[in-house]
């Protein structure tokens, strides 16, 4: 008989921890730049945070390796706590680095995160995911861990301990723009998903009623998905300009060749495939004999749809929405090219000015939004899974 996974020595955490150990000693931990554009000087681990902190960090990683190899009951709770502590320690180490190496007299000098630190953050993140997946559900642990880590980072930023960090500097010089970008990004991607959902359900119902619609509809949404996103954004400029010139009242609504209108259209077009496909498959895979039984007992088509087909299809539909939302969050960044706003604005500005920190200021929140959407919709999918169905069924 196979022992349950939690009774076997964990191999993932030791591998990740040893990799992290090698990388933090090998790569630069932090960088100091005299100003925004000039490439900075890299600092190794001991130079950056001192011998004591370096030893502590290494000891923490070693402890993870040792703990993961041993079998005791609560080891995954211990591992989780240790990973969380290490993640919470990182902003403090960054502040320590700034205190040690940032020249006091240079007004434009700033610190940047080095490759070693990025690797450490990334690998700690992976370890957190691995450890959390081994903990029994309900998954309250996830939320507690993520919240704790975020709170410590937030406190460090709010207390000004990370003010010299280039990312924070970039944010500090444009907080209003950042807030606006966030609003635009969310509004654009979420409304695109919402529009697609409504269209997708209508299309799915249409395909179920008339089978001959199925091929053309699925072919069309698949085709839309194959157009390169930049091209689609660009292609929509001409027809929408023509439209708004022909009907001036459209301009008062904000519909022009560039801006949110073509972006929304393109995003909806991209979002259709996953939602349409999942909605159609989910609804049409409700077993015929159930529908037959329901109909034979006198349920109306409406009741059959609302009480039988939709609840059974819900988990798969939400899965489609999840995939679409993550995709839309990413694509919205590209939509900044045609003036739609959002975090893409920072990315393209940063690329134009060769300011990588500004690129990060756009890219990191985009990733965070996608991850948040993933988490929320995964949870929603679990909540909406009808009782009585197998967890994997």
């Amino acid at each position, binding site marked *: 008989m196979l022992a349950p996974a939690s009774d076997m020595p964990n191999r993932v955490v030791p591998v990740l921890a040893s990799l992290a150990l090698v990388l933090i000693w090998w790569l630069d931990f932090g960088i100091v730049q005299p100003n925004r554009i000039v490439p900075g000087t890299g600092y190794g681990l001991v130079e950056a945070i001192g011998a004591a902190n370096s030893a502590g960090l290494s000891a923490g990683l070693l402890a993870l390796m040792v703990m993961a190899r041993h079998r005791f009951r609560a080891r995954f709770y211990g591992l989780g706590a240790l990973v969380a502590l290490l993640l919470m320690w990182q902003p403090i180490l960054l502040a320590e680095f700034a205190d040690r190496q940032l020249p006091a007299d240079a007004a434009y000098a700033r610190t940047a995160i080095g490759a070693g630190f990025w690797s450490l953050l990334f690998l700690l993140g992976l370890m957190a995911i691995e450890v959390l997946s081994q903990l029994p559900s309900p998954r309250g642990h996830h939320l507690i861990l993520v919240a704790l880590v975020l709170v410590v980072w937030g406190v460090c930023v709010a207390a000004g301990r990370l003010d010299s960090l280039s990312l924070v500097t970039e944010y500090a010089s444009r907080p209003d723009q950042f807030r606006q970008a966030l609003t635009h990004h969310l509004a654009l991607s979420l409304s695109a998903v919402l529009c697609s959902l409504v269209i997708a359900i209508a299309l799915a119902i249409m395909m179920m009623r008339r089978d001959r619609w199925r091929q053309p509809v699925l072919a069309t949404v698949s085709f839309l998905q194959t157009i390169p996103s930049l091209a689609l954004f660009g292609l929509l400029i001409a027809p929408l300009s023509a439209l708004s010139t022909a009907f001036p009242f459209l301009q008062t609504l904000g519909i022009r060749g560039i801006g949110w209108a073509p972006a929304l259209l393109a995003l909806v077009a991209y979002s259709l495939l996953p939602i349409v496909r999942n909605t159609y498959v989910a609804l049409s895979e409700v077993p015929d*004999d*159930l529908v*037959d*039984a*329901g*109909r*034979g*007992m*006198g*349920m*109306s088509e409406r*009741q059959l749809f609302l009480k*039988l087909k939709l*609840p*059974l299809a819900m988990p798969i539909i939400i899965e489609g929405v999840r995939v679409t939302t993550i995709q839309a969050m990413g694509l919205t960044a590209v939509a900044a090219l045609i003036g739609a706003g959002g975090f893409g604005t920072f990315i393209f500005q940063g690329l134009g000015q060769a300011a990588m920190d500004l690129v990060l200021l756009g890219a990191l929140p985009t990733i965070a939004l996608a991850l948040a959407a993933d988490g929320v919709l995964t949870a929603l999918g679990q909540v909406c899974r*009808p*009782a*009585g*169905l*197998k967890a994997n069924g």
Partner: protein
Amino acid sequence: MIELKGVSCRFGSTVAVDAINLTVETGEVCVLVGSSGCGKSTTLRMINRLLPHSAGEISVDGQDIRRIDVRKLRLNMGYAIQGTGLFPHWTVARNVALVPKLLGWSRDRITTRVDELLTLLGLAPETFANKYPEQLSGGQAQRVGVARALAADPNILLMDEPFGALDAITRDNLQNEMLRIQRQVHKTTVFVTHDIDEALRLATRIAVMDQGRILQHDTPENILRSPANAFVENLLGSQDRGLKLSALRRVGDAMSRHPQPCEPDLETDWLSEDDSLRQALSVMLWHEAEQLPVRDAGGAEIGVLSRDQIWTGAT
């Protein structure tokens, strides 16, 4: 009463049901039997209008079903199908409550009715009401399926191979339950099966179908005694028709009854009055017995069945 007059069903150029006439009297169990593709399920599904009939007239209690609102028609017909068709995301209780809920019964009435039905089908409500179909065995699920069909006390019961997917023992149990329940509720029932033994056992009258036509419509006994043609004869099997006939008779009807029930002799083997003559014959063959005592459901000895009585009783 259900009447089909000259009813046909065509799908494109194929004729699934070809101008059949069939009358199902109130309270009787009409079993449609035949091989797959013979049109028996199609016939059943035309009665609750899941399929439209292309020609002829179907009436229920004298009323043309095309003049009845389709939902009203179906709500008044219990419907049970092969593989249960239970909704997997609903509990047993909610599944059974489906039609009463559609009819707008009060919550209390529905709860009472669900408990009553589960008990009738031999499922303890406190154990089963809150289970999901996935947690039931095949036989239990099919019992729930039958309970659901009976839920709103419909006048008519349509059953489309309800026991087709069950193993032999479970099927046997459920057939017994069906007979017991039918004795209590007397529903006008149309029952589709491909199993001639099931048909002989459950039917008041059997309609043997082939290629969209009814070859013979008669009581099980008459069908066994005088099959209309070679097809029916073949379906019955030529070798064991005698046994099938004896299976239709109860021991209680063929035995000689004691003037008064008496204490049973615990040493000897015995028969129950509800056993069929076929079972009685088998027991006698096994024990090489000339005659056996018969007990009633309470365990008292009420009569004796002899080998000769099986002969006279079965033929």
